[in-house]
Every structure is written in C-alpha cells, then in structure tokens.
C-alpha cells in the first residue's frame, strides 16, 4: 500500500535487523573497505543529525526554560499577551523578558492530539475489521487505494477545506447564539474550534492506523482464526477475541505513530483550530467543543516571522523542544508497551 505499507513494515521490524539475508562475510578488498567506511559515515550522519537537533534546539530554548523554571508549564494569564510582551522586550540581552506560562498551548496540544487519537483508534479499528472480514471482495479492493489516497493528501488541503467549508458551517449553523452569548466575555466563537480540529485530524491520521492494523490482522496465523471459527463462534466474536487481541501490539504501535503525527501537525491546525492561545474549558458543557485554541506546533507556524528576534525566537524554540521531547517520549512508550504485550503471543510484532 505504498507509504502506509512501508510504515506497517517499520512497525513490525522496529529495532531489529533480520539475520537471514545479510551478506555473508567476505574478504575485504580496498574497494570494500572504502565503501564500508563511506556508507557507514552516511549512516552515522543520521545519528549526528538527531543529536545535533536535540542539542541545538534545547540549547536555543534553554534561556526560556531557565528563566521561568517549572512555571513555564503553568497558567500565568493570557498567553498571547505574554508573548507580545516577550516580542516587545528591549534589545538589551540583560533585560530580555522571558516570562510565559504556556499551559494553554500545552493543554491544547495534548487535548487535540488525545481526542483525535482516541477517535481515530476506534474508527480505524472498525474500518480495518471491515476491510479484513466483512467487506465484500470488490469493496475490499476499492478500499485500499482510498486509504492510500487519503494518506497522501497534503495537510494544507485538509486545512483549506476545513477553513473554507467546515469552519463557516460550524460557525454559522451549528454554534448557536446562546453558546456565543454564554462565553461572550471570555472568548469569541467563530467556528474555528476544538471540534473541527479534532475531526479533521482524525481523518488525517486514520489512514496510517488502518494500514498498520489491517496488516496486523492479516498476519494473524490462520490456525487461530480457523480454530476459533471451528468452535462455533460467530465471525465478529472470532475476529474480536482472537485476531484483534493478537494484533494488540500493532494497535498500540499504530496509536503511537499516529500520536506523533498528530502532535507535529502544524499547518492544518493553524488554519482551523483558532488563533488564540485559549484553554478550552470543559466546565462550559457542550460549548467546550466549539471553543478555539492553538496547539504548540501551530503557534510556532503562526509566529514564524519572529524566529530571528530574540528572546521571542528562543521562546518558540522552547515550544519546539517540548514537541521534540514529547515525540521522543511517545516512541519510547510505544516500544515499551509493545514489549510487555508480547508475552503471550508469537506474532512478530
């Protein structure tokens, strides 16, 4: 399935090199040694790149963290106002203003990512089960290109349709005047909202998850599914209790991969999630879903012009550092969970 098939392969083979097909040892000729050195240097350059990225970004972001301490993550009032303050800080390095409480941005990031991944996991699992078991043959064949296509659509097009079609629809027809009234003094509801952001992000990350889960369901040994059916269990039950259960590590891996993608989504979210650093308030009831916000990645894109202006740039790099550490932490968590789930199963994930 194109890129999605490659991603599924990555998930299966993460961290392990298969032993079988590697070249047998050969006496080293000078050409061999040169080739090995050059290619090895290229490979090591990847590690250098990552190390450099981590070091450079954190180094650049450090002043912002050290100035605020842990309150960097707290809520200190209007985060947009704070950012304007930082932007307008005097040119003298000793008098740089760093004070920021980025909680609304962090909260928005994890809220949108979390909701989208939860929705996408359920949606993708059901779609994958449909594709593997219940879809008639002709429909099964049609669905694979559909998934590939959805995965290939650039995020800016999702954002465009979002902001030109869905946001006005929500703003004019779904959000009622009472809702707008109820939060009038705090925030303006114009359609750019948590709901639209979550919805479109779910659609964006579903294809990746579906590809991985379908691969995993198809890789479940036929003996298990045959055995379950032969016991007189109906197709849904057999699929759910045996195949889906065996595919749990892959579902987790898909969720982690999708989370990393959702975390880093900047362009689409900057178009539809709202342009204010507001923390949506769950106590508002249903209005909660229609409140705007702005996750970290979108904040960086929106304020990209200020990257060369210190200390504003350093604050933006601090946002990026949080994203970097989160994405890395997600990968590690996924790897760890998959190891734990591998106890009972024989499947290669």
């Amino acid at each position, binding site marked *: 399935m194109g890129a999605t098939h490659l991603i599924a392969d990555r998930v299966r083979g993460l961290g392990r090199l298969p032993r079988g097909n590697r070249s047998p040892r050969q006496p080293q000729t000078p050409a061999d040694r040169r080739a090995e050195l050059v290619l090895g240097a290229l490979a090591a350059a990847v590690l250098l790149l990552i190390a450099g990225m981590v070091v450079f970004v954190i180094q650049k972001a450090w002043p912002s963290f050290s100035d605020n301490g842990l309150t960097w993550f707290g809520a200190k009032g209007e985060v947009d106002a704070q950012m304007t303050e930082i932007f307008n800080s005097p040119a003298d390095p000793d008098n740089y203003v760093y004070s920021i409480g980025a909680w609304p941005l962090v909260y928005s990031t994890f809220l949108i990512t979390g909701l989208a991944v939860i929705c996408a996991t359920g949606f993708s699992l059901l779609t994958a089960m449909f594709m593997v078991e219940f879809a008639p*043959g002709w429909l099964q064949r049609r669905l694979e290109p559909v998934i590939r296509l959805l995965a290939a659509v650039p995020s800016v097009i999702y954002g465009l349709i979002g902001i030109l079609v869905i946001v006005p629809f929500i703003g004019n027809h779904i959000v009622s005047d009472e809702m707008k009234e109820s939060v009038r003094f705090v925030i303006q509801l114009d359609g750019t909202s948590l709901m639209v952001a979550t919805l479109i992000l779910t659609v964006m990350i579903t294809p990746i998850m579906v590809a991985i889960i379908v691969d995993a369901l198809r890789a479940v*040994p036929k*003996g*298990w599914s*045959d*055995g*379950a*059916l*032969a*016991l*007189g*269990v*109906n197709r849904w*039950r*057999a699929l759910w*209790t*045996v195949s889906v*259960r*065996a595919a749990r590590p892959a579902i987790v891996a898909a969720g982690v991969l999708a989370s990393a993608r959702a975390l880093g989504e900047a362009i689409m979210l900057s178009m539809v999630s709202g342009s204010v650093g507001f923390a949506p308030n769950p106590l508002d009831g249903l209005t909660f879903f229609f409140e705007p916000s702005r996750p970290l990645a979108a904040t960086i894109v929106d304020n990209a012009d200020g990257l060369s202006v210190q200390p504003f740039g350093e604050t933006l790099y601090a946002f990026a550092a949080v994203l970097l550490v989160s994405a890395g932490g997600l990968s590690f968590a996924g790897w760890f969970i998959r190891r734990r789930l591998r*106890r*009972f*199963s*024989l*499947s290669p994930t």
Partner: protein
Amino acid sequence: MDDLTPPPVRRIILDNMPEPVVPPAATNGHGPVPEVVHEPAARNAVERMRTEDLSIAYGQKLAVNRVSIEVCAGEVLALIGPSGCGKTTLLRSLNRLIDQTPTVARSGRILLDGDDADFLDVTLLRRKVGMVFQQPNPFPMSIFDNIAYGLRERGSKRPGRKELEPRVAEALQRAGLWEEVKDNLSGPALRLSGGQQQRLCIARSLAVNPEVLLLDEPCSALDPISTAVIEELILRLRTQVAIVIVTHNLQQAQRVGDRVAFMYLGDLVEYGAAAQVFGAPQAMRTREYVSGAFG
C-alpha cells in the same frame, strides 16, 4: 579420411502407430472410475452425519467427486488416500469450514442428524461438529482461557469463572491432559509441548460437547510417543463422540479406524469396515495403495 560431417539422422518408423489416448471425460484426467465398494453401516450404529453425492470444486478443479459416506456414533471413520485425493477437503466440508475459501463450489447434501447442514446456522453446526487441526493451534492465552473459550464466546451472557471451572476440568480430563496441567491452568498455552498442545486443542473442542469430532491429521506434526498417547485417546473417546480422522499414515488408520474410506483423486474408491478394507480390499486401487504400490 576424416569425415567431419555429422552422421546421418536415422528415423524410426513404426509399423503400427499406437492409438492416441482419449482421456475419459470428467474424471480429472485419470482412468475410468473404479467401482465403489460400499458397505452399509452396521445395524446398531446411530448415524450422526451423512453426505449425499457431495462434490466440491475449487474453481475448475474438482476436488471431491460425488462422495456419500456416513459418520456413526461410537466408531472412528478413517479417511485415507494419497496426497491431493480430497480427504481434507471432504473433512473441512463436514463443518463447512470449506466455505471460507473464496473459489469453492459445493453440490450435494450434508446431513447432521437428518437436518441439511446448509440450512442450519453455521455456528450451530460447528458446535455440534468440532475440529482439530494438523498443526496444534492453541490461542495465545492461558490454558484455562483456551478451554473456556468456546464456552465463553457464545451468544448469551458469559458464564462466570465458578461455572466454567468444572467444565474446563472435565474437558481436560476427557482429553487426558488434566493430571499434567492441573497445577498450572493460568500458564500460557504456548509453552506446552507439541503433544500437550494437540491434546489441549482436543480438550478445547470437547469442552463445547460436540457430537462429532473431526481430526485433520492430528499426529503428523508430533513425535511417536505423543502420537501413541493421542491414538489411545481417540480410542477412548469414540464411545462418546463420533470421530472422523484423516490420516496419510496407513498403520495409524489400521490402529484406530473402525471403518475406512479410501479416496483417490476425488473419488471414493472403497468404503467399509477396517478389517475388510485392509485385509481383503475389493477394489484394485485399494489393494495397490494398501500394499504400498503407490502413495
């Protein structure tokens, strides 16, 4: 003088050209169908399943050609024949597992206790007709969960652990595995040895109390000792469930079979009591197979 030209080609001319062979139609390309020798079931056997003129084809290829056999309670029916003769296909059609294959087409009837199996709910059929596969396939769960699986995943409310424990114990006892695993029921099933796993699969099938048990070459992946244990288990179980066993091992068929059906390339060649099929086979092909002339 050196003659560098190649020697002239000699042509062999026959006086009588042999007649071209015209294969008879609709018999998979092999010779005319030998007579089917069919012995009716013994008077006192209760018939559990029956096939009537069952034919199964994969696309264009006919795998089973108009086979009619009976499966009776209290006895073991052994299906023997060389590879590709259709015995596994026939076995898989008895619990309609063959329907999972996309290109398959079936004609003829399969009857379970007199009811046409095609009109029964397939899950109902499979609860009455259990199956054990060639490769032991315990689920990646604990031993207890494996046996309890068929009992839990039914239509109605899931029975609690208290209700399941006696039934799991009983199934394990019937399969002869109880003594070996009773202290470790929550251990992973995949850590058992091959023979134990196969007995676990048998216990799993027995837990739902089937009338008929289908065994698809159950010992082919096992060592001789495990094989002997399972054969002895089969002999014990046959009074409780009707058993159909597919095997390519003639000695095994002789050891466990009460009735034997010999199939060749999709046709049922001979069907009768084991003593008769092995001792005094009536069809020539049976004689050749049983004596090892081909296989």
